[in-house]
C-alpha cells in the first residue's frame, strides 16, 4: 500500500525555522531602547516637575507641588508613613484581587452564557452596557445601605467596575471562531459542550486574557474608590489618600498615588506575561 507522501514536493519547514530564529535574534537586541526610551521620558518629566516647583511656583504655594526630592524625603523615606501606606496598599490589593477574581468568574461565565443563544445575548447585553455607564459614585451609597460599609461592599464595587470588559471580551473571543472550524465540529457531530471546550474557549482564550488585563487596572481603581466611601475595617490606601488630602500633606498624597499605580502596574504586568504565554500556546504566531 502506498503512503500518501511526497516529501520532496513539500518545502521542508527547516529553512523557515532558521528565518524565524534570526528574527528573534533581532528582537532580543531591541529591548535596550525599550528600557532606555521610557526612562529618559521619566527623567525629563522629573526635571520639568522640579523646575516648575522651584522656579515657577511662589514659595508660599509650593506645598501644592513639592519637588520630587521633597516627595522622596517626606513621603517614601518617612518610615512611619510608609508602613501605614504599605499596609493600606495591602488591604486595597486584597480587595482588588478578590473583586477581580469574582469578576473574572462572573464575566467569563456571563460571556459563555450569552454566546449560547441569541435571545440570552439580547436579554443581557443592554444591562451589561448599563452597568458600564452607571456612575459608580451614585451606586456606592446604596451598596453601603445594602451590604454594610466593610470589605464586602468594597469588593462589590470592584466587581461592578471591572466586569464589563470581561463580559465583552469573552463574548467577542467566543464569536471569533472561524466558520470553517465550526463546520468541522458540525461534521464531527460534536455536542455543544464539546464545541465550547475544544473549540470556542481555546479560541477565545487570548481575548479573555486581554479582558483580564484591562479589568485588573479597573479593579484597583474600583478598590481605591471604595476606600473613600467604606470606612469600616482596615483602612485601604484610598482612605489614606483622603486623609492626606484633608491635611494638605501633598508629599504623602503623591507617594500614595505612586504606590497605587504601582499596584495597578504590577497586576497588569502579571497578565501581560500570561497573555504572552497564551499567545504562544495559541499558535496563531505570525508564521508567514
Amino acid at each position, binding site marked *: 500500500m502506498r*503512503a500518501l507522501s511526497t516529501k520532496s514536493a*513539500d518545502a521542508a519547514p527547516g529553512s523557515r*525555522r532558521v528565518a524565524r530564529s534570526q528574527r528573534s535574534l533581532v528582537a532580543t537586541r531591541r529591548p535596550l531602547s525599550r528600557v532606555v526610551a521610557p526612562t529618559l521620558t521619566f527623567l525629563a518629566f522629573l526635571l520639568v516637575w522640579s523646575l516648575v516647583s522651584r522656579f515657577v511656583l511662589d514659595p508660599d504655594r509650593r506645598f501644592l507641588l513639592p519637588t520630587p526630592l521633597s516627595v522622596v524625603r517626606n513621603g517614601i523615606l518617612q518610615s512611619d508613613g510608609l508602613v501605614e501606606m504599605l499596609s493600606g496598599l495591602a488591604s486595597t490589593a486584597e480587595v482588588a484581587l478578590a473583586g477581580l477574581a469574582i469578576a473574572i468568574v462572573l464575566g467569563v461565565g456571563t460571556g459563555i452564557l450569552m454566546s449560547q443563544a441569541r435571545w440570552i445575548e439580547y436579554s443581557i447585553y443592554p444591562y451589561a452596557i448599563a452597568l458600564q455607564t452607571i456612575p459608580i459614585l451614585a451606586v456606592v451609597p446604596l451598596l453601603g445601605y445594602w451590604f454594610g460599609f466593610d470589605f464586602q461592599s468594597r469588593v462589590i464595587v470592584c466587581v461592578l467596575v471591572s466586569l464589563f470588559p470581561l463580559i465583552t471580551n469573552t463574548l467577542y473571543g467566543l464569536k471569533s471562531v472561524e466558520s470553517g472550524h465550526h463546520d468541522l465540529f*458540525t461534521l464531527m457531530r460534536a455536542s455543544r459542550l464539546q464545541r465550547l471546550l475544544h473549540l470556542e474557549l481555546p479560541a477565545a482564550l487570548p481575548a479573555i486574557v486581554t479582558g483580564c488585563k484591562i479589568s485588573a487596572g479597573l479593579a484597583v481603581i474600583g478598590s481605591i474608590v471604595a476606600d473613600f466611601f467604606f470606612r469600616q475595617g482596615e483602612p485601604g490606601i484610598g482612605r489614606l489618600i483622603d486623609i492626606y488630602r484633608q491635611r494638605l500633606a501633598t508629599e504623602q498624597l503623591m507617594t500614595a498615588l505612586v504606590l497605587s499605580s504601582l499596584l495597578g502596574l504590577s497586576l497588569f504586568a502579571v497578565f501581560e506575561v500570561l497573555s504572552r504565554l497564551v499567545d504562544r500556546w495559541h499558535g496563531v504566531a505570525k508564521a508567514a
Partner: protein
Amino acid sequence: MLMGGMISNLLSRPFALASTPGERARAGAVAANRAAIASGVKLEDVSLTFPNGTQALERVSLSVQTGELVALLGASGSGKSTLLRLLAGFEKPTSGVVHADRSQLGYVFQDATLLPWRSVLTNVELPARINGVAPGLCRGRALAAIERVGLSGFEQHKPAQLSGGMRMRASIARMLTLQPRIFLFDEPFGALDDITRESLNQQLVDMFASEPFAGLFVTHSVRESVFLSTRVVVLSPRPGRIATEIPVPFAYPRSPELAYSAEFAELTGKVARALREASR
C-alpha cells in the same frame, strides 16, 4: 463487511478492527440507513436560495455510489462548494431532498482548518476523540493516519510550523481517523503548487483504485477532473445547474502517463468545451 474492507486498507489493520461500543452503535445506525441510501449520497431536485436572495442551486439531481469518484467542475459561483455543504449538512435545501448518512462522511475542506493551538497529532486525533473512541485507540489511529499521509516525524509540530501541502496532508489524515466511506473534497489542492498537487492527485487515484469509495471532488481544473474521476459533472453558474455529465472511461489504476495519451487529450478537450458552453 463493506466498511471493514475499505477502512482497513486506509489505516493499518490492527487499529481498524478494534472498535468501541460507541462505534459499533454507529455501525448499527449505518446498517439501518444503508437500505435507504445503499452506500452513497443522493440529491433529488434540490434548490437552495440564500436569505439574501442569491439562488445558489436550481433543481439539481445527482447520485454518487460506492465505486464512483465524481468530479464537480464549474466556474466560480456555480454552486460546487454549496452542493458539498448541502451533503455535509452545513446548509439546508430550500426545496428537494438530500440523502447522505453523515456518520459515513469524510470532508476535506478548502483550507486545512487545523486548530492552530493543537499539534498535528492532537489535531488528527480530534474527530475520534469527539466521537468517544478510547484515547489509546485514538492515538494509534492518528499515528497510523499520519504515517499514511507521510507526516511521520511532524506529530508534535503546530500547524503554523508546516508548509501548505503538509497542512493539507494533516487535514486528510484527520479525516481518515473517522474511517469514512463517502469522501467529499472541496477543492482541497487548489492552493498547492503543481508538483505537490499532481502527486496528491496520483495518490488519491491509487487510494480509490485499491478500495473504491463514493467520492465527490470539487475542482476548477479540467485536467484534474478528468484524471481523477469516473464521471465529470459540469455545473453552469448563477444559479448552479447541472449542464452536462461526461463519463470518463479510463480504467484504474491510472498512471501519470495517462495524461499524455490521445484519448485523454480528446476527453479533456470535450470537457473544456462543455465547461465553456456552460459558463457562457
